[in-house]
């Protein structure tokens, strides 16, 4: 088979698997698990094959036009370069792991068939985005991912949190997608084509008329999809979905789609200095803000969600300084270790029967209950904190190195201001990342208090994938940073000495400070009893998690916050702790800016409809009724009246006839 055929099969197989799963889910439940796992695994193999054949060489381009679509043609186009090939492998790897993990995680879930089918459909859409060489086809995958995300976040729709979160995720991403769509049209109008290669060719020859406008419009969609400030608010709430969904969609793939999109169209953004600076500011605010917020979260998954936002901030920061190699490098390594973090967190939630770090910090020996999760999560947290030699170190140093490179003025791609912004924010975030990673690890695994509950061994499907993902988290960076420049045809990604020492030192400092704070506060834990565990600890992991999410707010008073004095984050953040836990009250700002006006507009429309439009409708009904009543009044039943009217008419007619006949 040619590489093109293989590449076509990669998105097609999960799609067919998902469609078959939806069709057969109820009738043939025995086929559901194979239908979920096998197409995704095959896609992984095929994606790896495509990557090997492509080999970082010349990009594979192939296009076919299904039907004429007017002045700007839309084509089914493939564009596979090194980025696409490697990101597809990552997507396939994470999706396969998640599908295998889900068979254990949602073992007893009655809605597993539709869940697995939607995950397959999502995987297919992500492959489409990655491989697509046409912006409209890319948009199709982009929107399919959005709707799948909506369904999957709302998987536990019995809980109000999940319902609200799914709606919020959908609406906030749509808020970005509308400008994104307009931006795509503007781009295609300027370039005369939706083909990415042609667009890039137009940009290279300077044929873009409105680079800043287009870049800003596209940036809105990217900010929504990749959860960048100020459209990031949906991602922490989306943690109300099942953990594998968080791992797949909200850590490794969908949120990376925005970064990947900018990476593909980086020349378009580079054509506008304003967009690049804005991107840098956006990345910086996102990084630092999410780092602070992550330090204050009580829900283990929300910590990881804010961490995801921050790492995505690194990627957009790398793009803001014009280096897509570093961005995609970080995307790959982050995809691996963040998926691992989420999946391990799912195991921990199942074992502990709670998603609250405050409750976990009061459990002894939780790490002995879940040794696989303990070890793999430690690896992943070290990678997240960018401690050498874990993969996160290399990718993050690549980003910081590029920023430093820009600051020192060795490139013409990006303004130096972006470099400074990204470098400073990146270094601050390195401290914060290490701090919240340390806090998470300490609270989850070094708890003191009652013995952790024993729920037996975790399912094999759930623990094996942790080790599978631990391998790239551990080793990916160190082995591939020399290979990647061949694939990405960019400059060297090896860490530079200055940033490495600086970044690692800051990360160690953040970790040590957090450890100190924890030592200081942990004595308080015994004094304040806290915690609520799931009502059905013997149920499967999905049920335990759904109950944990549903009980968090009644038990602790807030979805994201716990009044725990033993939390080192509280000591470190000081007065910032409460606003950070609430995501710096950005939701309240949105409520004032969008929700209230929309509600006021809705009540205005309601008033107009009820009082104004309805009046006309009632009037339209009343007038004939009055006329009818008047006509009915004539029906007196008095025959003489009838005959009088009849004869009066006859006289009038006769006179008229006479007048006409005589010509008067």
């Amino acid at each position: 088979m040619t590489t093109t055929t293989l590449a076509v099969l990669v998105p097609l197989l999960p799609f067919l698997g998902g469609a078959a799963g939806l069709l057969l889910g109820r009738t043939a439940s025995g086929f559901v698990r194979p239908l979920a796992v096998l197409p995704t695994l095959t896609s992984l193999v095929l994606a790896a094959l495509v990557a090997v054949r492509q080999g970082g060489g010349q990009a594979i381009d192939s296009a076919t036009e299904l039907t004429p679509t007017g002045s700007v043609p839309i084509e089914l186009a493939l564009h596979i370069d090194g980025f696409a090939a490697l990101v597809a492998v990552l997507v396939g790897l994470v999706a396969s792991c998640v599908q295998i993990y889900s068979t254990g995680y949602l073992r007893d879930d009655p809605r597993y068939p539709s869940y697995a089918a939607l995950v397959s459909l999502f995987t297919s859409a992500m492959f489409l985005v990655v491989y697509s060489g046409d912006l409209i086809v890319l948009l199709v995958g982009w929107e399919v991912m959005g709707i799948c995300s909506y369904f999957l976040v709302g998987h536990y729709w019995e809980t109000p949190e999940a319902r609200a979160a799914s709606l919020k995720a959908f609406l906030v991403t749509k808020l970005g997608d509308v400008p994104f769509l307009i931006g795509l049209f503007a781009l295609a109008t300027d370039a005369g084509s939706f083909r990415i290669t042609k667009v890039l060719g137009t940009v290279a020859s300077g044929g873009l008329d409105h680079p800043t406008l287009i870049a800003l419009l596209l940036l809105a969609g990217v900010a929504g999809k990749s959860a960048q400030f100020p459209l990031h608010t949906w991602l922490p709430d989306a943690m109300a979905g099942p953990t594998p969904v968080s791992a797949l969609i909200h850590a490794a793939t969908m949120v990376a789609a925005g970064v990947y999109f900018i990476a593909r169209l980086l020349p378009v953004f580079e054509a506008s200095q304003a967009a690049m600076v804005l991107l840098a500011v956006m990345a910086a605010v996102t990084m630092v803000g999410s780092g602070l917020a992550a330090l204050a979260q009580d829900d283990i998954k929300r910590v990881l969600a804010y961490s995801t936002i921050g790492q995505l901030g690194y990627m957009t920061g790398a793009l803001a300084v014009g280096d897509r190699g570093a961005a995609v490098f970080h995307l790959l390594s982050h995809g691996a270790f963040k998926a691992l973090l989420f999946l391990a967190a799912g195991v921990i939630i199942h074992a502990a029967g709670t998603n609250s770090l405050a409750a976990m910090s009061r459990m002894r020996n939780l790490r002995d209950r879940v040794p696989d999760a303990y070890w793999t999560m430690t690896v992943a947290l070290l990678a997240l904190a960018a401690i050498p030699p874990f993969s996160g170190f290399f990718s993050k140093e690549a980003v910081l190195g590029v920023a430093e490179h820009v600051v020192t003025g060795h490139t013409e791609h990006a303004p130096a201001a972006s470099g400074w912004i990204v470098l400073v924010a990146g270094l601050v975030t390195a401290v914060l990342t290490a701090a919240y990673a340390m806090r998470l690890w300490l609270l989850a695994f070094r708890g003191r208090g009652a013995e952790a509950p024993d729920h037996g061994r975790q399912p094999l499907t759930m623990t094996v994938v942790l080790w599978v993902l631990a391998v790239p988290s551990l080793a990916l960076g160190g082995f591939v940073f020399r290979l990647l420049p061949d694939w990405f045809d960019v400059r060297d990604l090896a860490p530079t000495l200055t940033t490495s020492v600086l970044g690692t030192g800051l990360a160690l400092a953040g970790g040590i400070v957090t450890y100190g704070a924890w030592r200081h506060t942990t004595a308080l834990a015994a004094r304040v009893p806290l915690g609520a565990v799931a009502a059905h600890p013997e149920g499967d992991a999905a049920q335990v998690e759904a109950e944990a999410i549903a009980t968090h707010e009644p038990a602790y008073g807030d979805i994201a916050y716990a009044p725990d004095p033993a939390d080192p984050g509280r000591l470190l953040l000081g007065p910032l702790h409460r606003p950070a836990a609430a995501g710096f009250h950005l939701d309240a700002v949105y409520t004032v800016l969008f929700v209230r006006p929309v509600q006021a507009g809705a009540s205005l429309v309601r008033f107009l409809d009820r009082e104004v439009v309805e009046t006309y409708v009632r009037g339209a009904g009343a007038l004939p009724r009055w006329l009818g009543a008047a006509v009915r009044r004539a029906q007196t039943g008095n025959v003489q009246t009838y005959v009088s009217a009849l004869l009066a008419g006859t006289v009038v007619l006769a006179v008229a006839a006479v007048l006409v006949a005589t010509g008067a």
Partner: protein
Amino acid sequence: MSLAAATHGFLSPTGVEIAFLLVGLVTFGAAIVTVTTRQLVHAALWLVVTLGGLAVEYLLLTAEFIAWVQVLIYVGSVVVLLLFGLMLTRAPIGRSPDADSGNRWAALTVAVAAAAALVWVVVDAFRATWIDLDGPAAGSTEATGASLFQNWVLPFEALSVLLLAALVGAIVLSRKAKAEAATASGSTPSGSTPAGSTPVTRSEKEGTR
């Protein structure tokens, strides 16, 4: 006969015309009283005057047979029938204040409008038309009889069937009323006998003619 119609002006009426006019005025006045009087029985009596006046007008138009039939049937039987009807419906003797319905003003309007239109059209059409009344009477019994039994035999016989149907119809209506009166345990027992007399009277009249 040789005089042209144009020579007969309205301002120089002949004797017949004066007589016709006077009798016509009486007739019209009696008709007006008939439809306006508040005493129901008086209305029937004024109707006699009107119908009699019309009989005189027929005579003046030399239609003597029609005139006698008019007197016999209308004055002799129809008015009697109407008087019977008035009595049977217990019409009040004397002035009844509600003889006219609330429709009278509309009726007056329609009637006056119709009269104005008709008079205008008729006068406009026939103001110069002259009837020559000299010579043999156009409506003598002989002429009428000859015409009737020469040219109008079939309609005449059909008319007898119509009268028979009317006879049967009147009987049926009366019998139904009687049966209902019997089932209603004699609520209006007096109504049956005079209602039965109606067709009898008319069949006599048919025999007369």
